[in-house]
C-alpha cells in the first residue's frame, strides 16, 4: 500500500470517527462547545438548498464555500477522503466483497444511469426554488446522522425509543449493503451532494493524468476505482472521488495525480440528456406546490405539531430544516422526535416535541444551539424563560382533561402536574374544593387549573401525569410564540 492510500484511509477513519464522536458527545450532553455542526456548516448541498428555498444563506453555512473551493482545487476529495457515509460504503465493499478481478472490472465500469444523481440534484434544487426544501432526504451527512440518531442510538443501553426510526435506519442499511454488490452505489448513482460537487470538480486544478507510452492497458487501475470514473479510458473528473487507488495500482507508473494535468479528451461532464434534466426540474417544480397544497403540512396549525423552542414560523422553518436530526440527538429528555405524518409530506422527518416521551427542559436551549441552518433560533436561557423581561418562548399550552384527571373525575387527590410546573409563578394552580365522595364522605381535593398567560407548553406536566397512556393534562401547539395566529388569548404584546 502506497503512502497516498494510507493517508487517504487515515483521513477517512479520522473523519468517520469524528462524525460518530460528535454525535456521541451530543447524545451524552457534553457541556463543552464542541463543533457539533461543523460537518453540516460545510455542506454545500445544505447551503445551496436553504439559499434556494429561503432566499438567504443563514450565517455559518457560508463555510460551504470552503468545501467548494477545495473541490475546485482538488476535485471531489470530500467524497473520497471526508464523507463518513462514503467511508462506510467503502468499508462494506472492501470487507464483504468476494469479487474476482473480472467481476471488479465489471462493477467499476461507468454506467450511463449513474447520471441519475444529477437528475435528483436538479429535482431537489428546483423543489427548493419552489419553496420546498427536501435536499436533506438524500444528503449523505443528514442521512447518516438520521440513521444513527433514530436507529443506532436507540439500540444502545438507555437509548430512547424512536417510533418510525426504522425508516431512516433501513435506508442507511440498504445503502451500506448495496455497496457490497456495487461499490459506493449510493455515491455513484444517487448522492445529490456528490452531483453538486461534481459540477465544481470539472474545474479541478489537480486531477488524474495518464502520461507517457508505458500503459499496457492492464486495467489494474479500474479494479479498485471507487467512483467508476474510468481512469484508463476517458477519465471522468466529475465522477472521480480522488481515492487514488488507480495511481497506486498502476504497475507502469503512468497514472499520476497532479497540478494542471492535461484534461482528458472526452466527457468531462456526465452523460446528461437535457430532456431528462429539464424533466426532473419541471417535475419537481410541479411536485413542490402539490406537496405544499395537498401534503397536509401548511395552512392551519395542528394540535400535535409542537416544534422545538425557538423554531421559526412553519413556512420559514420548512425552508431551512434539513432533517439532520441533530436537535433530536441533542435533546436531553428525548422529547424531540421525527415527524412521520404530523407535519405533512413536506415536513417528513422534521423535529416535533412529543411530551409523553420527553419534555422541553425549562432552561435548556440545546436544540437551537446545534441547529446548523437556523431553522431553530439559538436562544439564551434568559430569553427562553422570559428572565430578560420579554414574554417567555412558548411552544404550546397545557389543557386539563376533566374526564381523566384524578381530582377532577375520580375524587382522588393528585397534584403532580402542579408540582412539576417550572414557570414562576406556576402556570398550573390548584383550586381547593371539598367534594362529596361515595357514602357521603367529604374529600378535600386540589383541582389543577392552567393559567394560559403563564403556560409555556413545556409538557413536563403531560410527561409526568400519572394517568397512563393518555395523560389527563396534555399540551397542544396553541399559544406557540412562533405563530402569532395560533392563539386563544389576546394578551397584548409587551
Amino acid at each position, binding site marked *: 500500500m502506497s503512502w497516498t492510500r494510507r493517508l487517504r484511509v487515515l483521513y477517512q477513519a479520522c473523519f468517520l470517527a469524528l462524525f460518530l464522536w460528535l454525535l456521541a458527545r451530543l447524545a451524552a450532553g457534553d457541556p463543552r462547545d464542541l463543533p457539533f455542526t461543523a460537518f453540516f456548516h460545510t455542506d454545500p448541498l445544505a447551503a445551496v438548498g436553504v439559499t434556494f428555498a429561503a432566499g*438567504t*444563506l443563514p450565517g455559518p453555512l457560508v463555510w460551504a464555500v470552503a468545501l467548494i*473551493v477545495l473541490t*475546485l482545487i482538488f476535485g471531489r476529495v470530500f467524497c473520497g477522503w471526508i464523507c463518513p457515509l462514503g467511508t462506510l460504503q467503502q468499508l462494506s465493499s472492501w470487507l464483504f466483497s468476494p469479487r474476482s478481478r473480472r467481476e471488479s472490472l465489471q462493477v467499476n465500469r461507468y454506467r450511463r444511469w449513474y447520471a441519475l444523481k444529477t437528475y435528483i440534484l436538479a429535482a431537489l434544487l428546483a423543489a427548493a426554488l419552489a419553496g420546498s426544501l427536501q435536499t436533506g432526504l438524500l444528503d449523505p451527512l443528514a442521512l447518516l446522522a438520521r440513521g444513527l440518531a433514530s436507529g443506532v442510538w436507540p439500540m444502545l443501553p438507555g437509548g430512547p425509543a424512536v417510533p418510525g426510526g426504522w425508516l431512516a435506519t433501513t435506508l442507511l442499511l440498504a445503502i451500506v449493503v448495496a455497496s457490497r454488490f456495487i461499490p459506493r452505489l449510493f455515491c455513484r448513482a444517487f448522492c445529490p451532494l456528490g452531483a453538486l460537487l461534481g459540477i465544481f470538480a470539472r474545474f479541478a486544478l489537480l486531477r488524474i493524468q495518464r502520461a507517457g507510452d508505458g500503459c499496457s492497458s492492464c486495467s489494474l487501475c479500474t479494479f479498485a476505482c471507487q467512483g467508476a470514473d474510468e481512469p484508463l479510458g476517458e477519465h471522468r473528473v466529475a465522477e472521480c472521488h480522488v481515492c487514488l487507488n488507480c495511481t497506486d495500482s498502476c504497475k507502469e507508473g503512468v497514472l499520476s495525480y497532479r497540478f494542471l494535468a*492535461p484534461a482528458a479528451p472526452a466527457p468531462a461532464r456526465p452523460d446528461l440528456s437535457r430532456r431528462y434534466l429539464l424533466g426532473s426540474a419541471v417535475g419537481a417544480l410541479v411536485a413542490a406546490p402539490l406537496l405544499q397544497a395537498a401534503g397536509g403540512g401548511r395552512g392551519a396549525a395542528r394540535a400535535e405539531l409542537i416544534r422545538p423552542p425557538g423554531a421559526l414560523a412553519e413556512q420559514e422553518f420548512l425552508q431551512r430544516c434539513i432533517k439532520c436530526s441533530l436537535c433530536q440527538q441533542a435533546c436531553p429528555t428525548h422529547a424531540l422526535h421525527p415527524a412521520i405524518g404530523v407535519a405533512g409530506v413536506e415536513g417528513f422527518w422534521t423535529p416535533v416535541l412529543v411530551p409523553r416521551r420527553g419534555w422541553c427542559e425549562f432552561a435548556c436551549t440545546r436544540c437551537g444551539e446545534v441547529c446548523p441552518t437556523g431553522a431553530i433560533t439559538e436562544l439564551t436561557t434568559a430569553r427562553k424563560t422570559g428572565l430578560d423581561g420579554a414574554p417567555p418562548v412558548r411552544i404550546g399550552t397545557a389543557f386539563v382533561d376533566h374526564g381523566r384527571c384524578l381530582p377532577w373525575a375520580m375524587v382522588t387527590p393528585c397534584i403532580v402536574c402542579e408540582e412539576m410546573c417550572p414557570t414562576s409563578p406556576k402556570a398550573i394552580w390548584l383550586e381547593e374544593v371539598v367534594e362529596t365522595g361515595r357514602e357521603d364522605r367529604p374529600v378535600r381535593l386540589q383541582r389543577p387549573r392552567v393559567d394560559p398567560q403563564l403556560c409555556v407548553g413545556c409538557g413536563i406536566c403531560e410527561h409526568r401525569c400519572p394517568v397512563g397512556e393518555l395523560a389527563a393534562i396534555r399540551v397542544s401547539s396553541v399559544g406557540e410564540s412562533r*405563530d402569532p395566529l395560533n392563539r386563544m388569548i389576546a*394578551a*397584548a404584546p409587551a
Partner: protein
Amino acid sequence: MSQPYHHRITRREACTRLAAAGLAAGAVGGGALFFHDRRRAEASAPSVPDWRVPASPQYPPAAAASGPDPAANLRRAVAALGGMERFVRRGESVLIKPNVGWDRIPEQAANTDPQVVAELVRLCRAAGARRVVVTDISCNDPRRCFARSGISAAAGAAGAEVIESHRLAMVPAALTGLAAGLEVVEELLKADRVINVPVVKHHSLSKVTLGMKNWYGVLGPGRNRLHQSIDRSIAELGAAFRPTLTVIDATRVLLRNGPQGGSLNDVKAVNAVAAGTDQVLCDAWGAAQLGHAPASLPFLELAEQRGLGRADLKAVHQV
C-alpha cells in the same frame, strides 16, 4: 491529430483552466456573499397611517340629519361639516369601510344601508377622488354578504371599486395594545383617505356596535380573540385607526339579537344619518339612537380617557 496522453499542457491552457477555476470560485464566493444573511426571519410590520384632516373650529365635530331619504340625510350632514371637499382632495384614493358582515338584506339592518354607501361614493367622486374602494371582511360568505346587502350593486353603480373579502390582500401591521399577530387589509394602508360607515346595532358583549367596533372588519384571523376584553379592545382600535370621517347609519337600527339580527321585529326605522370627525362623539350619537347614554358604555369611557374624542352629545349639530 493531437496525442491526448502525450501532450504537455500549454501556457494558454494552463491560464484558461486557472481562470476557469478562479471564476467558478469567484461566482460561488460572490453568490455566498450576496445571499449570506440576506434576509432575517422576522419582518417589521408597517404602522397604520393617520387619515384625519386638520381640525377646523368653524365646523362642528359631528352633524346629524333625519328625513325619509337616507342619501339626502348624508348630504346634509356632510355639508354641515364643510362638504366632502374638506375631506377628499382631487386625485386622492379613498377607502370606504361599511359594515358588510352578514348575509342579510337591507331591511334586516345587519349591514350598512346601501343607499348611504352609494351616496358616499358619489360625494367622494364629485370631490375629485381618483379611486374609491368599498370593502369589508365579512363574517358570512363574502359573496353572499356583498350581494344580498345590496352594497356591491349600489356602490359599484356609483363608481366605486367593490372588493369582496376573499380578494383582499392582508399584511401584518404594528397594532400596539392589541393581540399579537393581527393582520390588516393592505388596501387600507395604501388609501389616502378612509371613511368609516357603520350601522347602529345591538351587540351582546359591548351592548352596541358602532364606528370603533367596525374596525374589527379590517382585521384578519385572530380578531375573535379581541372579545376577551372587548371594551379595552374597542378603545385600542379607536386609537389605532383614525379615519378622515365617520358616518353613522341610523336609517334602520337593530335593537336586539345583534350583531346579525334576522327578524324584522328587531329593526326600528330611525331615518337618520350622522357624520363627524370625532369617532367617540359619533359612537355616542349612535348609542343614543338605541337608548344608551354614553356613560353606560365602558368603551366610550375608556376612549374618552385615552383622549380619542369627547362623548358630549350637545356637540352634535342637528340639521
